[in-house]
């Protein structure tokens, strides 16, 4: 093990200690969310109704505003929608963090804590936070309406790959039947 590993380990240790000390100082007198919140399984949806979310990302409103023929209004509308969409992603990310906090609070007192289950939940949580990050960047770059366009394009690509795979399997099956 060389100097670089040693210095890296030491730096990581110092950073972790500083972050930990800061968080323990901040959390003094600030308890976790109440345990009752665990029972609220619709917590994420409670932030913003599903229909509203669909509306933020829908193209229909943009098409209507574009039809009015005012570029200024259209630009303003797009900016507003983008801000709302970005706020929604941040809010959802914070709510997911809340779910994780509630889980950690509840599970840390359990005597039968399982490493594999905890790791699985942590991975799932990491994946969701990553998804939020990707959504945030995509919305910031392409706008909420553009996001659906991107998704549609990705779907189309996936569909084409699936079709190609099916075609390949079909060709293989045909070859096997004919003894090729």
């Amino acid at each position, binding site marked *: 093990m060389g100097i670089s590993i040693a210095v890296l380990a030491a730096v990581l240790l110092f950073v972790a*200690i500083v972050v930990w000390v800061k968080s323990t100082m901040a959390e003094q007198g600030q308890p976790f969310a109440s345990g009752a919140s665990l029972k609220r399984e619709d917590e994420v949806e409670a932030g913003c109704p599903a229909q509203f979310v669909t509306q933020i990302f829908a193209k229909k409103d943009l098409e209507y505003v574009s039809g009015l023929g005012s570029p200024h209004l259209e630009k303003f509308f797009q900016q507003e929608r983008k801000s709302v969409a970005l706020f929604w992603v941040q809010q959802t990310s914070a709510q997911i963090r809340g779910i994780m906090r509630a889980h950690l609070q509840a599970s840390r007192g359990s005597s039968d804590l399982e490493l594999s289950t905890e790791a699985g939940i942590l991975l799932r949580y990491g994946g*969701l936070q990553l998804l939020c990050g990707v959504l945030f960047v995509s919305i910031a770059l392409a706008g909420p309406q553009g996001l659906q366009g991107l998704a549609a394009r990705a779907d189309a690509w996936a569909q084409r790959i699936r079709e190609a795979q099916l075609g390949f399997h079909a060709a293989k099956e045909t070859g096997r039947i004919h003894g090729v």
Partner: protein
Amino acid sequence: MLSQIIWWSSIALEIFLLVRAFRGRLAAHYPIFYIYLSFVLSQDLLRFVVYRWEPRLYSTVYWTTEFLGVIAGCAVMFEICRVSLAAYPGTARLARNLLTLGFVLACTNAAVAASNDAHRWIATCVNLERDVRIVQALTILALVALFLLYAIPFGRNLRGILIGYGLFVGLSVVQLAFVSVMGNVSSKFLAYLQPVSYILALCVWVGHLWAYRSNPEPERAFAFEQQYARVAAATRYRLRAARGYLEKAVHP
């Protein structure tokens, strides 16, 4: 002269901490930490005596006591887990496994390094201590991550013990890494880094272990929360719901 100042000031601080431990009844709450501190104090005194009257034995005494100190340091980590996680049996089990793994890794590493390079024993000792300290630093890092993740509340005393020991181990790792490559005589700064880091740790301990401060009591969890399988299932369900909710944005 500077080394004498460092030597005597660390002895004075250790005595001071031990006096405070008995006056403030801290020793009863953190027995292993104070045994460690007593060990380091006796180690300092023994080294001083040998250095003064039997200098040819100094190397042997230094490295023997140094490794015993490293093992005693591992015991301090176990004590931090024992006290801080007393109310969290599941998390305590995770932490104990983590510490045992770190301890076994450190010992294996030490044994392998010693058998590989036994003929250059001082260089081997430096490399050995460096490797063991790196494993120790990584174990402390993993423990701090665990405490951070589960937001384990820490009292002032325990926080001080962990900060001081973490600081000492971190700086020792840096010092030993450079010494193993450049040699101890190449830089006075490097030669003094470990003792100075230990004095820093002692100062942190004096500040945090002045009087006994109990660890914050955890809030009593609901009976529902005690059943881990249900808690995990509920979290998985909620995270799945969150995923579905996010996907609605892309696929209405």
